[in-house]
């Protein structure tokens, strides 16, 4: 129930996507009619494109603000979107990126690892969603700045959580599983 309005956004998005996909598949049916079955590869790519378009639409204003350097405004816009979709992976990744750009390194690590945990595509070099370069940069800096702090303060739960998150991102960069 917490995401009641989000329910509706998603409902709407699903409806739109359903119509678009039906249209696409119907057009595709001409080419594919011989085989008599749908193509799972195609469907997967279509789903990815639909999701990507939806994310673009939702987070477009954030990207625009970020591109013109209005980072505080971009962050506020994210806060606004997060009211309806708290914890949504794309928003969390964007937040991490802006936090990093504004100098909040620990918070960026928290956000980026949360984002990757819920959507591994963000670390996948081949994905259009990929934020791999950013993550590499953050991990490099984090290992230099956060890791020594955390190791010298074993009782500091939050620092050590940041370290755990760093190790997690590092292992995902190296291709490891959770």
């Amino acid at each position, binding site marked *: *129930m917490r995401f009641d*309005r989000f329910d509706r956004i998603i409902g709407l998005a699903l409806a739109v*996507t359903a119509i678009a996909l039906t249209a696409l598949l119907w057009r595709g049916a001409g080419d594919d009619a011989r085989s008599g079955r749908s193509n*799972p590869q195609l*469907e*997967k790519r279509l789903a990815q494109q639909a999701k990507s378009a939806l994310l673009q639409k939702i987070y477009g204003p954030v990207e625009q603000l970020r591109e013109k350097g209005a980072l505080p405004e971009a962050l506020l816009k994210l806060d606004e979107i997060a009211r309806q979709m708290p914890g949504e992976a794309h928003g969390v990744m964007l937040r991490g990126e802006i936090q990093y750009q504004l100098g909040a390194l620990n918070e960026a690590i928290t956000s980026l690892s949360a984002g990757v945990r819920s959507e591994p595509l963000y670390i996948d070099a081949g994905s259009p969603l990929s934020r791999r370069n950013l993550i590499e940069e953050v991990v490099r800096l984090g290992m230099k700045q956060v890791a020594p702090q955390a190791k010298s303060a074993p009782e500091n739960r939050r620092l050590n959580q940041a370290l755990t998150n760093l190790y997690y991102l590092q292992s995902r960069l190296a291709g490891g599983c959770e």
Partner: protein
Amino acid sequence: MPTLLLLLLVFLPLLAGCDQPGSRPVLNIGFMNCNNEQETLARFRPLTTYLSEQVGVDFRTVPVDTHEFEERFAAGDFALTHTNSLLYVILKENHDLRLLLTESRGNFGPRTAGAIIARKGSGITSLDDLRGKRMVFGPMMAPSGYLAQYDLMLQAGLDPERDLDYYAIPSGSFKHEKVVYGVYFGDYDVAAAPALDLETMTRDGKITADDFEILAQSPLIPYCTFGSAKETDPELVTKVRKALLALTPETTVAIDGEQVKVLKAAWIDGFEDLQDRDYDLVRDMARRTNMPPYQVF
């Protein structure tokens, strides 16, 4: 359509994990949003949890925006409702909603009032001074933030549509707080402010009694109201009623790893047994101001 399923799966984790229905019957309580959904859930989930425990069914807390409440109620979405007094009157008139109990809070218990305020020192001291002024109202369906004040003005021979310079309704949430700040900061000359919001903002120290002139205050009308759909099992309604009346300020419930006081969380002092005829004042106001359920064009 596996694609849709895929898309659904992508977002599904976000939708899970609020109310966990068990094997018991699941019933929705529609709660009219005051400021926003998060606030509504934070206020009423403890109450809903308490009712589920007492009544032995799984109630769900459903936050509902005012403008879509009637449609969803008509569609059978809610076994019980928690609304303001005007929405109660509308749902009663159009869909035979049954009065359950009225919520009690603040100086006037199960009743509340609407005030028309101006900034102290503005020179505006009576309703007559409103002519040609800029006014800010609360949301259209608010009994003590719009209806009562609109009615006060009509009764005083003022037509808000003609006699004001203009009037506005603030955007976004926290509209009642905003109308007060709108006058406080001089953007508007006068505002339609619920007496209860003036009370809580004063108690919070946001404003003081000396900041405003109260040009007029409406008679006391019923405050937020629980109702039950006519289809809802009468035996269950009786149990809910009993459970609500049995609540004391000390009653707690376990929720999200905390043990919280139910009434405190919901900002409620208690419940009162008003009668349907106690809402006639609201009905008269709705008739005089041409508001639903009596609106004619």
